[in-house]
């Protein structure tokens, strides 16, 4: 029994070391965000000292150069609205095409599933042209694009769940005088809640971190956070490493807060999404 205990302690130590290694890159960025911009590239692994410490000036600089606060606002606006729109419309569509069995609905279903395996590069050029022509190249218009791209996975996941719930309750509601819309919102939607959480988390993670789609459709006029980060580097010739580090920290903080507050849902959602996807 004694050797068992020793093994346990060794494993615990091993995992602790690994955890420190996992967190180290983020910590290094955090540490460098307080150093002067010329001290970062050469000595990234040294703590800031009297000579290199610059307080929060990198943060002030980075926020000013990229309009980070606006970027945060646009990211939040686009993510929240897109997820809400995706949840509402794809759950309705999924319920309809699962309950009404015609050639058209099964064709639709397979088309949605098909869209999941098509890589973004296949449609990015033509899609951004179409979006321009239809004047969807702004933070409100991009919500429609996200609904379109998000519908594949979301319809697929909602349909999978709808198939598993018996129709009796819905039929009872209809007999009691509900029209299909009332039935959906009062009876079906509450049952779909667990899947809705999963779909919301998967889409929110994707949209919040998405770089290519907003940069192609909107450009740099209304920057989301990933676009702002890339803009800071791509935009000007010499890059300001200090502002860069501050911006990376600012980009990570909201995600970590979100993760620590809804960790349980996120991990469950990711597992459920992976198993079905």
């Amino acid at each position, binding site marked *: 029994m004694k050797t068992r205990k020793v093994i346990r302690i060794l494993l615990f130590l091993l995992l602790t070391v690994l955890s420190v290694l996992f967190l180290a890159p983020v910590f*290094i960025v955090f540490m460098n965000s307080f150093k002067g911009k010329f001290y970062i590239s050469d000595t*990234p692994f040294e703590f800031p000292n009297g000579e290199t410490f610059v307080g929060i000036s990198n943060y002030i600089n980075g926020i000013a150069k990229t309009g980070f606060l606006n970027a945060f606002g646009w990211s939040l606006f686009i993510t929240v609205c897109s997820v809400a729109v995706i949840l509402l419309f794809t759950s309705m569509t999924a319920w*309809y095409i699962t*309950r009404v069995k015609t050639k058209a609905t099964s064709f639709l279903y397979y088309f949605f599933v098909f869209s999941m*395996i098509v*890589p973004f590069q296949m449609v990015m050029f033509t899609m951004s042209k179409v979006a321009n022509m239809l004047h969807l190249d702004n933070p409100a218009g991009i919500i429609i694009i996200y609904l379109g791209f998000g519908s594949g996975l979301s319809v697929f996941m909602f349909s999978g769940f709808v198939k598993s719930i018996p*129709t009796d309750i819905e039929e009872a509601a209809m007999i009691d005088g509900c029209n299909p819309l009332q039935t959906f919102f009062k009876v079906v939607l509450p049952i779909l809640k667990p899947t809705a959480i999963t779909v919301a988390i998967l889409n929110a*993670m994707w949209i919040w*971190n998405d770089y290519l789609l907003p940069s192609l459709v909107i450009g740099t006029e209304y920057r989301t956070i990933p676009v702002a980060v890339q803009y800071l580097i791509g935009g000007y010739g010499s890059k300001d490493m200090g502002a860069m580090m501050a911006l990376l920290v600012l980009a990570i903080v909201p995600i970590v807060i979100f993760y620590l507050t809804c960790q349980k849902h996120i991990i469950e959602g990711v597992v459920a999404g992976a198993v079905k996807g």
Partner: protein
Amino acid sequence: MERTLKKYFAVFTVPTIIAFTISFVIPFFMGVYLSFCEFTTVVDAEFAGLSNYVKAFSNMDFLNALWFTAKFAVIAVVSINLFAFLLAILLTRKIKGTNIFRTVFFMPNLIGGIVLGYIWQLVINGVLAKYEMTMFADAKYGFWGLVILMNWQLIGYMMIIYIAGIQNVPGELIDAARVDGANPLQVLKNVTIPMVMPSITICLFLTVSNSFKLFDQNLALTGGAPSRKTAMLALDIFDTFYGRIGFEGVGQAKAVVFFILVAVIALSQLALTRRKEVEN
């Protein structure tokens, strides 16, 4: 019920269908058509037969990207799944602090690709600076940098899926094997691994498709440097579209090839999973 519901087709499906048509259906078919055309904007297309495909396959950057991506995918898939599986085994042994470890290992997965790329650019260049080198001196640094980055990002994700799989293995099965005299390694090989086969299939699929479609991380970490040698397929297609005027058609042809490649991998994986399901 179906009959009443049928009349509500428009209400329930039209918003999704319109958005789906605008952002996927039209661009997809237009993309397939334009890959056979010469164009700079989408309205001036002229049919050009297979010439874009010929140009794509005689383009060294594209062939290099293809080879680079395939090499990357193999190494990343094997290493990620190996480490993730080992961690999952450790974290299902009721060691103290399991929940905290799980939280830490999963965290990088939520950070976006662009941000991840720049974090690792700092770290890797910092290490190489000790040898007076940068990551952009040689393609091998960029290659291994991407492998490390991808491991860091996906190990936690795959670990979570493996943990779910391992926890579903019935305890009696393992106890029975132990009673029959199997040592821990034999239990792992003959009981645990066959029982978590579905998780392994899922993880392999996810890592393969994530490796093939990698873009943001590639753009931020190396941007293809040195001289496009570390550009993967998605980045090479992007550069062909937006880097040189007049090559939009070639970019679209490369994109179609890329799509077919990804689709073949996805479908063969699906077929494999189906067969496994029948066996169970």
